[in-house]
């Protein structure tokens, strides 16, 4: 199952690091947060990347696919519009919910791994797929707590959703690491149980220990165990694209480029810096 040809190493496009991203000579893949993309003409630096042949994938964070309520039409329209305007070969969102009872949580929250939640997710994912002209990839999140009514393991839950919806997997290796570490489980056991044959592309990000837990902050460097998981994954079957997500506390350019080089080396792809 391949939607993307091999694109190698990428990085999430953010306005704060647009200059650094534009200066990566080997870049062929990036992702933009769908809700941050202004309506109308995309930012000039993003358009320049498109003209260079860089693939840009819209990444939704607010559709709340795991919410019990249907996806809001205005949000869906904007998501679909982003994919069209970027001529993206696919789009992605999370297996999560972000609001309830009219209140925004401000972050991605886990859904119960239950039959009821699978039904809601399936309904919402299909509603998106009905409008989206390209394949949809779903990303499991890093969660700091589990629901008491979990009936399935993470791997079972994910496999069932992907099978029911025929969606692809956006695998976040750092989320796998965070969840396993916080639950006291072996990350490799969790990773190897996932439906890896459905991977569209891979996220990698940094985190930090706080409050007795590992937090997937996207504002800290990627730890070595996450790179080790990348190496294991790529030795088994290398995904067509792996990208670094950084969402704040941006380090100096050389540091960020060094992190991209480490990712390339761990994955066995050419460096893009």
């Amino acid at each position: 199952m391949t939607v993307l040809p091999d694109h190698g190493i990428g990085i999430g496009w953010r306005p704060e690091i647009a200059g650094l991203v534009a200066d990566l000579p080997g870049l062929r893949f990036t992702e933009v947060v769908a809700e941050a993309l202004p309506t109308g003409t995309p930012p000039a630096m993003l358009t320049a990347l498109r003209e260079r042949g860089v693939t840009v994938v819209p990444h939704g964070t607010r559709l709340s696919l795991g919410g019990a309520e249907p996806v809001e039409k205005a949000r869906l329209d904007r998501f679909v519009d982003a994919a069209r305007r970027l001529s993206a070969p696919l789009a992605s969102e999370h297996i999560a919910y972000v609001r309830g009872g009219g209140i925004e949580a401000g972050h991605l929250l886990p859904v119960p791994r239950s039959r009821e939640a699978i039904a809601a997710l399936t309904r919402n994912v299909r509603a998106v797929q009905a409008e989206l002209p390209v394949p949809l990839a779903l990303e499991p999140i890093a969660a700091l707590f589990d629901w008491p009514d979990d009936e399935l393991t993470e791997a079972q839950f994910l496999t069932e959703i992907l099978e029911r919806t025929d969606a692809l997997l956006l695998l976040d290796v750092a989320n796998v690491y965070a969840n396993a570490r916080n639950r006291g489980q072996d990350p490799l056991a969790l990773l190897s149980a996932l439906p890896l044959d459905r991977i569209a592309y891979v996220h990698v990000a940094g985190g930090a220990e706080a409050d007795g837990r590992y937090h997937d902050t996207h504002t800290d460097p990627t730890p070595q165990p996450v790179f080790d998981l990348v190496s294991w994954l790529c030795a088994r079957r290398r995904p067509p694209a792996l990208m670094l997500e950084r969402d704040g506390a941006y380090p100096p350019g050389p540091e960020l480029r060094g992190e991209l080089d480490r990712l390339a080396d761990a994955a066995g792809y050419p460096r893009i810096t």
Partner: protein
Amino acid sequence: MTGPDGLAARQAALVAALVAGGPLPPGFDADDVAVARRALLRKRAGLVRYHWPRLAAALGDRWLAVFGEWADGRTPVGALRDGWDLARHLAAAGRLPACAAAELAAREVTARYDGESAPRRRRLPAVRRIGRTIAIQALGRVLVR
């Protein structure tokens, strides 16, 4: 399943517990949810800092503590309004640092905010005094002293 035991109701109860001071729903690990609640508060503080840079900068090392004390359990209304509400709260208590007062005063003369719905850009001139700072807006131009 709908009703009080349905997914929608349980998801809403969890959001309320995490960001709006609601009780812990039955069955959840209290420690885990408390850790998530504090993580959400830190993320919210970061977003408000982005929208109100001078407010956050003026409070310096105390930003997270001041924001956390005010925001914990208070229903989020978006970073722009959260910061606006906090700045007004601090101004009313005489605790708003002077350089943050300029930021608030400039916002107050630029947009009309009733504290309950999205701020709306002012079409008419306006004058506001916050502490010793005065902001004047006319034809969209703002002067702060």
